[in-house]
């Protein structure tokens, strides 16, 4: 069992377009790590970022973390992130755990891969998402991360998803530019 990782985000100035071809921008939603510290099923957001980063690094790329404030809409900020990513590829993630891989020359509402059923994703899925993002960064066409589907996830979690997204959207500031973030992960002792 992985240790619980506390997420500390340190702002490093406004995020700009980069020329680093070996980076994947990991785009974080407005409330990521602020009002919300864990996904819809209680996975700590620190652990989510650790897995995404590990997946990206395993394929020889570097994660670059950027926080978005102008929108809580995943397609919107993931596509913006792909546009400033040196590789042209981004992984966008909302606080509740919903995730997508985007590419800069796609339509905003399109994507390379989408992971809409957050209650079903564990660390392994996030690691695979990171790996695939890097593979797209290399210009490969990888096998998509296998689709997970559970019709009861909606019955159980949709109302919770709505409430979490309302919290997320509270922090939207249309005029706030995206910010470069340093990610610090701190192991915390779990209470028995």
């Amino acid at each position, binding site marked *: 069992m992985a240790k619980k990782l506390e997420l500390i985000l340190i702002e490093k100035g406004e995020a700009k377009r980069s020329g680093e071809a070996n980076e994947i921008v990991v785009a974080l939603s407005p409330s990521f790590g602020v009002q919300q510290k864990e996904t819809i099923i209680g996975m700590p957001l620190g652990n989510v970022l650790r897995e995404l980063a590990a997946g990206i690094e395993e394929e020889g790329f570097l994660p670059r973390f950027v926080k978005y404030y102008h929108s809580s809409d995943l397609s919107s900020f993931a596509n913006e992130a792909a546009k400033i990513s040196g590789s042209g590829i981004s992984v966008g993630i909302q606080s509740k755990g919903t995730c997508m891989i985007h590419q800069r020359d796609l339509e905003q509402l399109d994507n390379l891969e989408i992971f809409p059923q957050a209650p079903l994703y564990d660390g392994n899925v996030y690691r695979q998402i990171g790996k695939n993002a890097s593979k797209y960064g290399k210009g490969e066409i990888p096998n998509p991360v296998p689709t997970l*589907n559970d019709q009861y996830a909606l019955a159980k979690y949709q109302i919770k998803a*709505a*409430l979490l997204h309302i919290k997320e959207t509270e922090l939207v500031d249309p005029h706030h530019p995206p910010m470069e973030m340093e990610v610090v992960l701190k192991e915390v002792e779990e209470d028995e």
Partner: protein
Amino acid sequence: MRRSKRFEVLENRPVNLDGFSEEWAEVGLIAMESPYDPLPSIEIRNGVIVEMDGKRREEFDSIDLFIATYGIHIPAAEESMKMKELEIARMLVDVNVPKEELIRIACSITPAKLVRVMSYLNVVEIMMAQMKMRARKTPANQAHVTNLADNPVLMAADTAEAVLRGFVELETTAAVSRYAPFNAMALLVGSAVVNRGVLSQCSLEEATELKLGLRGLTTYAETVSVYGTEAVLTDGDDTPWSKGFLAAAYASRGIKTRFTSGTGSEVLMGNTEKKSMLYLEARCMYLTKACGVQGTQNGSVSCIGVPGAVPGGFRAIAAENLMASMLGMEVASGNDQTFTHSDIRRTSKLFMQLLPGTDFITSGYSATPNLDDIFAGSNTDCDDYDDWYVLQRDIHVDGGIQPVRQEEVIQTRHRAAKAMQGIFENLGLPEISDEEIEAATYAYSSYDMPPRNIVEDIKAAEKFMESGGSGINVVKALYDSGHHEEAENLLGLLKQRVAGDYLQVAAIIDREGRVKSALNDENNYCGPETGYVISEERWQELSSRENVMSPRDF
């Protein structure tokens, strides 16, 4: 506290796995009748609406402006707005008041007024009104056909089976969007195997979806989403005008289109302006009407977990379907995504549209097992067919799908899979093996299919699109690979776009390949023995069962 054994049993009932919530009007988490909903009002000066629902024209957002300009029949508005909401509600359930009169009223009042009419109706009254107000006389049904692996062979076979069972519209999407051209193709081919073919679509990002439509790889469009608050609408990079433009783009190529909206979507997107779900949906309905679109898919669709979690949710959902019909539009009435663990809840929800009948009772019956339904599962799936048939038989109601024989299903699935093999070979796409055909013919789900090389398929799908692949290429490939009847049917479907008949409200293609719409099959219900009556022939079809006892057995 010592626990009651009865409470312990109740706690473990499926219904208690569902998510519920209290009302919270401040964030719009309220089905209808929010204290923040506006009071109806209208002021017209020189033929221009200068006030609507308590807002002056200067304060209008883009949705208000669009509705006030294009969505309300201004010459009749002052008179209609003077009517009492209770009076309109009573007219809805009065069989002596014709449908046309109510459509005329609904088209000349404001969203807030229409919502207040709804608040006077209980669910039985809403169902009575729905029976009278729906556009097409003959009720019908739409199915989802998807699978986890985006396997095109299985998808074509599942499509053909769905048509055999009576679905007249088929919808797919892609687990991985780059697979979409093959998914669209699978539906096109599968739908042309039975009778004279039915309409099919592929739900995607709008530009891609439009492209597939223009190329003739789909024959209708549905996933043109509208929302009731400006913030949510513009978050999707849209305005009312861009939606109207998109609708016009489809219409210009003779492609049937409906918009999609539904209660709860604005809550899920986090911006409700404190309004109730039903009021925001009323705005969507007037916006849809204003765009000149023939119909809508509503009924909370994929957001049903939200109205379903608050008090009065089902009533609001039934009311939103009725609002669409009142504006003279086709309604594909939801019963789409899964929202409950409880069979009692899901059936009760379904009954509110199955019993009165709507243009499409479900706008997404999963023609596959729910595990393969990429729209996150449906309220009813292929495991529910026999329950559905028995309910039709028990209640004497036509729910739009009919019993079939196993031999027929096997033959039909085989034919669809063979046709896919033929066109893939003819078009130089990755091979479909005989083993895959065999598996697709008898499969339950995508787990029964041998895996395909996904990367090769995606590359081939992209190449097909880049080289200008179209519906006509598919017709030709069908013909050249010896599938003449399917080629003829598919060509017939594509010809319909030139004729334009299926742009009429609530159009479907019937078993003989003719367009049936509210124009030539108008719902004229005005009391017992009017409107849709199940014919003797249809009743035989609906009530037939294999495992029934017969007096001859004794």
